[in-house]
């Protein structure tokens, strides 16, 4: 038997497509965000609550990933924002090639440059974190109903997050949410991540979320 040393990053091919995506997004002027959470944490609901507020402030488009159905894409479309659905049919995460194809389809329908591209990933706190999609930042969403130690259980997602959004904050008292414990867990695996608490239902924190996202997008030279 001959031993062949390789030291090859397994996801190098995905990452090469992701880098090409970065260039595509840059050409469209878009600041791209990869939104990751467990199923039911409130990604789509947050988009429904937020996208309406961006009208006139920023040009937004959404790439929406799900294993089955285009239900979430339909909900986002109802806000008036251009959206392209990716139905993976089985894959529990989006990869760069899927996003590339979707963005190209979306780009054909856009009538001008974009400020912000939101990629709503498949609901999953494990696999999506491994796949660079070409985004400028990763946003991890975690709801108050999931337990304060979620970031410790899923370090791969949280340690790569630039922004952590705590959702359903209107339910905090009802579930006995321990804010200090949640913040400590986030700091343990993502000390440099910004943290924003929101409620899509009441609107609490949405202005703060946009205040964090839009200036960062603008400062990047895009958006």
């Amino acid at each position, binding site marked *: *038997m*001959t031993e*062949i040393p*390789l*030291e090859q990053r*397994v996801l190098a091919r995905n990452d090469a497509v992701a880098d090409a995506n970065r260039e595509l997004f840059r050409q469209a002027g878009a600041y791209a965000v990869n939104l990751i959470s467990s199923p039911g944490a409130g990604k789509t609901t947050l988009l429904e609550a937020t996208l309406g507020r961006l009208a006139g402030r920023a040009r937004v488009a959404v790439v929406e990933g799900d294993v089955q159905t285009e239900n979430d894409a339909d909900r986002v479309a109802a806000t008036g924002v251009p959206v392209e659905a990716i139905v993976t049919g089985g894959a529990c995460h989006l990869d760069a090639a899927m996003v590339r194809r979707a963005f190209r389809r979306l780009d054909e329908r856009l009538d001008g440059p974009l400020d912000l591209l939101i990629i709503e990933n498949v609901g999953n706190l494990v696999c999506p974190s491994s796949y660079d999609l070409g985004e400028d930042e990763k946003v991890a969403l975690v709801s108050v109903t999931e337990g304060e130690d979620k970031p410790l259980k899923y*370090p*791969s997602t949280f*340690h790569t997050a630039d922004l952590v959004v705590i959702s359903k904050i209107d339910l905090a008292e009802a579930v006995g949410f321990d804010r200090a414990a949640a913040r400590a867990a986030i700091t*343990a695996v993502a000390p440099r991540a910004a943290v924003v608490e929101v409620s899509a239902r009441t609107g609490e924190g949405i202005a703060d979320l946009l205040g964090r996202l839009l200036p960062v997008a603008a400062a990047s030279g895009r958006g």
Partner: protein
Amino acid sequence: MGIALEVARLVEEEARRAGAVRVGRAGLRVGRWSGVEVESLRFALEVVAEGTLLEGWTVDVEIVEPTFRCRECGETYVGEGYLDPCPRCAARGAELVAGDELTLARIEVEDR
């Protein structure tokens, strides 16, 4: 499964490039913070090997624990999170230097 397929694709590509007829073994390094579940991956790697040069191969998986380097004194240490104090100087300010990788380290092949 997607990762197993990609590992198999990379291994087969390298094996063919080396003129091999069979792959006996492969070594992977998987970080604890990589987002990859090792037992599922092991099973998937057996499945994807069937009917290929890889069939019957053994995959050695080295799990890499989250490893930090202290920004104050440079000490590297295995830990559970960024809040762990440095074992040498007790500072709490570290960077992750290993533990999120997913690397195909090596393969062992037969050329005849």
